[in-house]
């Protein structure tokens, strides 16, 4: 005979009850249990089984709670706490009871907490990215008032260009809505610093004097530039970042006025920026004045868009006012613009955008898509948890009914349900934080740092607050159906079901089925969305960049102006370099280019073509590439017509060029481009400076594999299209590790002040260009998989529960002649109904999603049948599997056992 007294004493935890009273209670309940045990044994139950049944029939947390309530002193007695305090106590009680409930149903708790941790964690990870990139203001004072102006030529294929030097001088003077206006070079340049023999390249930007002031950043030491320093003769000054000051000058406090060698010229330190200063996503270490001569500020340079223009709105001025003023000014300037007709044809207008928004514009759709994806996942997870809670609630209907019969108000029942769900989601929120911490690390591996402002992505108190707020809201939302279920349940029905093994109410059943239906539909949307991204990525991966990226390696060199002031000097260096490289064992071929595909440069502009007006297609910009050495052979770009450029062109100073097929077909569709002539400076054709096309090559992708409209490229001999920023391209079977140091050595042998860096395989450059697409697909795939899993769990859980609830009914049916197949098909039909309904709704959602995603897809329109078919097949397979198991179990129910259970 078990020791009932010990059993009761171990489980009953009453507070505020005297020892004697408690002993009496223990005694009384123990006796009761003992009597029940004896009766079971008398009726033929095995003693062990009887003891098990007794243990299972006792809900100790509830007994404790109910007894505490019953023994509570009357309101108004001496030690009744204040009402407010009482409410707090009640809440504490609710949570304590909820905690016991969760501890008791460990399997349930683990399943739901895991689900919530994963779903909340995924949301938090993506939210941390969105928060860092889209939501958090830029790290400048009153950053909302910072704007940027952009020259836009939508009809010439360049809707978002940049700004020019004349723009800066004009706006600075004439736009009253701008308190201050500044410019910075459009893309960072590289400067060479360090000593002879071990020089290094560092990022450098040219800025106007008000640049730091416009951003609202005071210098740590020294001063910003003055207007006097905006001419070349006086521009030998620099403002250093804190980090460069620390590393190069060891943080010398007297650094202002000191000089250092940059690009072979002596430069004086004017000031030092505060720690951590950074403009948007740049890695600039040195700022120098954006010096110019009067020619560069002339009217015909207004659309030479080499700068990014930023401005701070004047106090009281609005963005709209700034737009009106800038638009009016650019309209007025058309009167004296030598290119007015062409600008009108290009649809030119000047945009004024918020600086932050403008910077992150490109990544916004992807982030919004990802956040929508994880939100769907959270909904699916939340529905799963709600469903599991509803199932749990059904088995507790009796308990709740008794509580109500004992005087618990509706509010008290609802409050208890709320305490349970909120406690659960808050634990899930903690798990979510851990998951998100891991998620952020995963995102870093997926290349989130390459997004605009991506390096600032972090996990901080803001994210943690969102986690807990989100978890609490989710808890409240999930509590609604659970509380509703409890409050709608009928008292007598529920109390009677204690003995009758009753089935759950129809509305509760409908709710649970509705949840599974919704889950199937939502998972379908996620799955097909991931499929679309997958197909799209597959298309991208299958698309050739237009050159043989295998065994191709490139390194970057910056030629300082002082040493290489003219193209001839640069050409001499290039010739020596190429000769040495070609003689080097392990290098198959070598070339020089100023426009490395996938190198981050997308310099393009207007080319004048003899006898041709504005391009009919609306695009008249194209890439220009100055090359030397066997460029096309090295890159593996095939010749389609005519010939390549060669050394004799250079020796004889022939003004010849090669174009790609995209360019040739734009101007001479169906005809040969050979023999036609183009100009390389500006939109007006000048016969004397013309270049004759001698060859046509295959087009290459310049900025990304997913480029759909090739701009076209003209290749000039380097001397005629010189640039201080060049890339060395090598065809070599050697690895980067093997060739990199050798390449550096060779360059230093030729010029000990010339560093080469960013030595990389072209394959890895291509890979980097796909990082957003690849990561989005990987993430969407992961979310879809989790969603699928949750749906399976949901469908399985609901079906299993339905079978369990209806055991008795199934038993009766089978006892009166229903065949197992009929039972099987009954439950399978239920599963199928949910499946096909969910798929129909999900199909609609998938189509809508594909429309919304169109901008992010490559080579995919609508929802391809393949994606749709696969999604349906996957969905059907897993849901049917999840349905089959419980259905099969139902068909194996033995009528005798099912009936005997009552």
């Amino acid at each position, binding site marked *: 005979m078990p020791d009932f007294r010990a059993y009761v004493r171990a489980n009953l935890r009453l507070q505020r009850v005297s020892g004697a009273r408690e002993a*009496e209670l223990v005694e009384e*309940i123990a006796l009761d249990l003992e009597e029940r045990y004896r*009766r079971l044994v008398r009726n033929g139950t095995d003693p062990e089984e009887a003891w098990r049944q007794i243990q299972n029939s006792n809900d100790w947390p509830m007994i404790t709670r109910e007894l505490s309530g019953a023994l509570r002193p009357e309101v108004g007695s001496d030690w009744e706490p204040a009402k407010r305090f009482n409410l707090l106590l009640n809440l504490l009680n609710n949570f304590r009871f909820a905690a016991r409930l969760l501890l008791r149903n460990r399997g349930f708790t683990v399943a739901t907490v895991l689900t919530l941790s994963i779903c909340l964690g995924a949301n938090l990870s993506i939210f941390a990215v969105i928060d860092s990139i889209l939501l958090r203001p830029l790290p400048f004072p009153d950053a909302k008032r910072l704007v940027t102006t952009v020259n836009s030529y939508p009809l010439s294929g360049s809707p978002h260009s940049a700004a020019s030097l004349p723009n800066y001088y004009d706006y600075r003077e004439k736009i009253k809505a701008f308190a201050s206006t500044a410019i910075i070079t459009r893309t960072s340049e590289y400067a060479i610093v360090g000593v002879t023999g071990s020089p290094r390249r560092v990022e450098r930007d040219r800025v106007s004097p008000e640049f730091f002031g416009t951003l609202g950043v005071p210098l740590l030491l020294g001063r910003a530039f003055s207007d006097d320093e905006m001419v070349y003769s006086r521009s030998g000054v620099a403002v250093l970042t804190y980090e460069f000051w620390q590393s190069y000058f060891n943080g010398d406090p007297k650094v202002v006025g000191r000089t250092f060698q940059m690009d072979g010229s002596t430069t004086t330190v004017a000031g030092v920026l505060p720690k951590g200063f950074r403009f948007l996503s740049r890695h600039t270490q040195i700022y120098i004045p954006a010096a110019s001569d009067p020619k560069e500020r002339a009217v015909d340079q207004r659309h030479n868009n080499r700068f990014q223009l930023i401005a701070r709105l004047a106090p009281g001025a609005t963005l709209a006012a700034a737009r009106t003023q800038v638009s009016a000014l650019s309209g007025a300037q058309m009167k004296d613009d030598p290119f007015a007709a062409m600008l009108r044809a290009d649809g030119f207008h000047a945009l004024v955008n918020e600086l932050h928004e403008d910077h992150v514009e490109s990544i916004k759709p992807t982030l919004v898509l990802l956040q929508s994806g994880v939100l769907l996942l959270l909904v699916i997870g939340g529905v799963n948890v709600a469903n599991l809670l509803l199932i749990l609630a059904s088995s507790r209907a009796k308990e709740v009914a008794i509580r109500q019969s004992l005087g618990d108000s509706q509010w008290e029942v609802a409050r208890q349900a709320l305490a349970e769900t909120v406690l659960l989601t808050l634990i899930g929120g903690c798990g979510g934080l851990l998951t998100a911490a891991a998620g952020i690390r995963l995102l870093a591996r997926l290349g989130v740092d390459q997004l605009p402002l991506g390096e600032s992505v972090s996990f901080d108190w803001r994210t943690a607050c969102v986690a807990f707020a989100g978890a609490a809201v989710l808890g409240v939302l999930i509590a609604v159906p659970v509380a509703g279920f409890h409050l709608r349940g009928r008292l007598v029905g529920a109390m009677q079901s204690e003995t009758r093994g009753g089935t759950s109410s129809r509305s509760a059943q409908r709710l649970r089925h509705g949840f599974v239906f919704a889950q199937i539909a939502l998972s379908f949307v996620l799955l097909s969305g991931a499929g679309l991204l997958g197909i799209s990525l597959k298309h991208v991966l299958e698309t050739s960049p237009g050159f043989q990226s295998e065994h191709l390696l490139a390194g970057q060199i910056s030629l300082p102006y002082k040493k290489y002031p003219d193209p001839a000097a640069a050409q001499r260096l290039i010739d020596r370099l190429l000769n040495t490289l070609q003689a080097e064992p392990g290098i198959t071929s070598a070339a020089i280019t100023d426009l490395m595909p996938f190198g981050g440069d997308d310099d393009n502009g207007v080319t004048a073509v003899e006898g041709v007006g504005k391009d009919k297609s609306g695009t008249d910009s194209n890439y220009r590439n100055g090359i030397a050495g066997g460029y096309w052979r090295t890159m593996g770009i095939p010749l389609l017509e005519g010939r390549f450029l060669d050394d004799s062109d250079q020796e004889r100073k022939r003004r010849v060029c090669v174009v790609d097929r995209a360019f040739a077909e734009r101007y001479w569709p169906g005809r040969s481009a050979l023999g036609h002539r183009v100009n390389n400076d500006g939109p007006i054709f000048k016969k004397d400076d013309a270049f004759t096309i001698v060859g046509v090559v295959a087009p290459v992708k310049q900025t990304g594999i997913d480029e759909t409209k090739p701009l076209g490229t003209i290749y000039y001999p380097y001397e005629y299209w010189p640039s201080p920023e060049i890339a060395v391209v090598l065809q070599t079977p050697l690895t980067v590790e093997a060739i990199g140091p050798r390449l550096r050595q060779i360059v230093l042998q030729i010029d000990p002040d010339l560093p080469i860096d960013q030595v990389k395989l072209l394959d890895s450059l291509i890979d980097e260009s796909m990082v957003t697409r690849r990561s989005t697909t990987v993430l969407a795939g992961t979310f879809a998989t989790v969603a699928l899993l949750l749906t399976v769990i949901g469908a399985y859980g609901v079906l299993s529960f339905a079978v369990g609830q209806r055991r008795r009914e199934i038993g009766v049916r089978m006892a009166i002649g229903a065949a197992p197949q009929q039972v099987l098909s009954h439950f399978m039909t239920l599963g199928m109904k949910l499946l096909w309904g969910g798929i129909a709704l999900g199909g609609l959602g998938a189509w809508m999603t594909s429309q919304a995603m169109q901008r992010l897809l490559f080579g995919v329109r609508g929802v391809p049948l393949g994606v749709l078919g696969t999604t349906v097949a996957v969905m059907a397979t897993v849901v049917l599997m999840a349905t089959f198991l419980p259905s099969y179990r139902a068909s194996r129910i033995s009528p005798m056992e099912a009936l005997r259970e009552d």
Partner: protein
Amino acid sequence: MAPLDHARKNGSAELLILAQLETRSRHGYEIASEIERRSGGSVSFQPASLYPVLYRMERQGWIAGRWVEKQGQRRRRYYRLTALGRAELAAQRSSWSEFLTGLRQTAGLQDA
């Protein structure tokens, strides 16, 4: 509060218990098994639902509990109906009958 409302809100547990104590005093387990027996098994009380109601009723003065030692038996706590309890039983009976009559008439229930 109208008797009908009162009866519905508090449920039938108190009425059931009071009724078992009308003729003689009983201990907790006996009350539960008597209810189960008389209802033909359709209503049963587990300790969780029984004792809290008993203690509440005792506190309200409807029933009184007392530990009794009978010969050859263990010491048990017996509950008996107080005068207040008897009045309450009468009141609850009438309000429940009223309620059930109303229920029969409006919901078309049939007598068992």
